[in-house]
């Protein structure tokens, strides 16, 4: 199984270096020491997200073991791995949705622009405005119109400004504007599944997050709608930092700059997507990406 990497844009060298450090810290299941933050040398980009020693539990069940990685700004990081490997848990730790599940908790260091996010004094509500999320199944608010859905975050958070303008801009960003501009007041449920998912992306973008988390955003969609979402991801990374969980390795190959492979709660390997798929350092990564298991 050889993923199509042609659409993957070449990485900038600065980003490359930022990620090298992340990979070094992440290789192996129990790094003896936490990897240092990358130096702010000339041409080195400060990571958008830094994850150090992240552990997550569901009750007594440990779902993540000491995960270490960094995500460069305006890049796409894909998390892959078999079902139950912890990749979704990892994603949900990044905006602290994980802790909403009764009995679930997470420990470790999670930095957004160098600011700690897991501290007791950090308000998860404020964090979630900076780290948006798109879910596996399209979940528009059924009681609201298309317009209402996009503006929901602004309205519910009492954010001022020209909502009309933001609705149009985010719908254009999510490549949905032309399809819905004549029926903005129609129910969000009147849209097809793929349109609903792009609506959910517009809704997440409207609150102007810096990071966008996507939890298998195309797994409930047909191939055409999937292609649209993937094109969209390419455009969105001009402005946002994206972390995407996917079951589909070809998709990871097509959309991501870097790929993290999770297995049984461990981060096995993280690095440039091309390297993960063609020349992985770890045997388990190779077995997974070549389809020997998973």
């Amino acid at each position, binding site marked *: 199984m050889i993923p199509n990497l042609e659409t993957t844009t070449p990485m900038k060298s600065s980003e490359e270096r930022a990620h090298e450090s992340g990979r070094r810290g992440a290789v192996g299941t129990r790094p003896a020491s936490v990897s240092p933050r990358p130096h702010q040398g000339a041409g080195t980009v400060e990571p958008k997200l830094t994850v150090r020693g992240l552990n997550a539990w569901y009750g007594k069940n440990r779902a993540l073991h000491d995960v270490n990685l960094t995500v460069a700004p305006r890049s796409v990081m894909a998390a892959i791995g078999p079902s139950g490997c912890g990749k979704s848990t990892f994603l949900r730790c990044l905006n602290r949705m994980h802790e909403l599940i009764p009995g679930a908790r997470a420990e470790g260091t999670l930095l957004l622009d160098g600011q700690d996010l897991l501290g007791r004094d950090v308000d998860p509500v404020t964090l*979630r405005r900076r780290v948006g999320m798109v879910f596996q199944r399209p979940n528009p608010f059924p009681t609201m119109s298309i317009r209402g859905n996009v503006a929901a975050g602004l309205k519910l958070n009492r954010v001022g400004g020209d909502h009309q303008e933001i609705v149009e801009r985010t719908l254009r960003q999510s490549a949905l504007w032309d399809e819905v501009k004549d029926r903005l007041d129609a129910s969000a449920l009147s849209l097809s599944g793929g349109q609903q998912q792009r609506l959910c992306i517009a809704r*997440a973008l409207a609150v102007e997050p810096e990071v966008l988390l996507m939890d298998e955003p195309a797994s409930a969609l047909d191939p055409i709608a999937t292609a649209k979402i993937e094109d969209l991801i390419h455009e969105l990374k001009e402005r946002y930092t994206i972390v995407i969980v996917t079951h589909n390795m070809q998709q990871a190959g097509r959309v991501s700059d870097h790929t993290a492979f999770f297995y049984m709660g461990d981060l096995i390997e993280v690095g440039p997507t091309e390297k993960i798929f063609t020349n992985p350092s770890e045997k388990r990564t190779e077995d997974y990406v070549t389809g020997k298991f998973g």
Partner: protein
Amino acid sequence: MNALGWRRFVNAFWTVASGTGVLVALVPLASLLWLVVSHGAKGLSASFFVSLPTPVGEPGGGVGNAIVGTFFMVGLASLMALPVGVGAGVYLAEKGDGPAGRAIRFTAEVLSGVPSIVIGIVAYGLIVTQMKRFSALAGGVALALIMIPSLARSTEDFIRLVPTALREASLALGVPGWKTSLRVIIPTALGGIVTAVLLAVARAAGETAPLLFTALNNQYWNTDPTQPTASLTVQIYNYAISPYEDWHSKAWTAALVLLLLVGLLNLMARLLSRNRMAGAR
């Protein structure tokens, strides 16, 4: 008989058996409707809905005051029961997984199983003995006590039907939990909650026992909550236990009116819940 024949026989047997079960179950319903309509329809007239009751032997007269009284007391009961019942339901659905929630849920279950005559006695002890007078207020309290537990449980059920995905979508936008409940979850469950309210109202409108010694009865118009008040159900009861033939026929007609009223409420509830389902695909 070969295997296929045997299977056909078993199939036919159980089809007939279950069909018979349905017919038997329908007999009481059909006979109830038939009895009420056949006895009640002939007394039905416009004046029956708007007139005061008349003494024995006097023609005409109606149950206008009882209809108003039923609406009045159910209204009073709804004013008390809606905030408490729906509020408790929201609490149970949102925060009801702890020991407090379990205690409330258990209480609501026990309370909804209490015979309505006992609820009437409680309202009598709480209100009538204090005011030293039968009153619409006491009747309203009794009906509210009947409405609250069923409202709480059905509100909880309807809110729990709202997919977790919607709650997560709202929280992921950085909307606080309480606002997510108020602006996203409850509006989504609103159709169901309104259905639950209508069903509770319909049930309260059909109660007799809790009103017998709380609101008592009244031969005249009354909308003063501190005065005894007529209701359709108690009026039917009084007419039915009387020895007079013309009051008996009035009891049938009043029963038909009550049946129409409760039926209408149930129908509205059904239509609302059907639209809700259609909205959620």
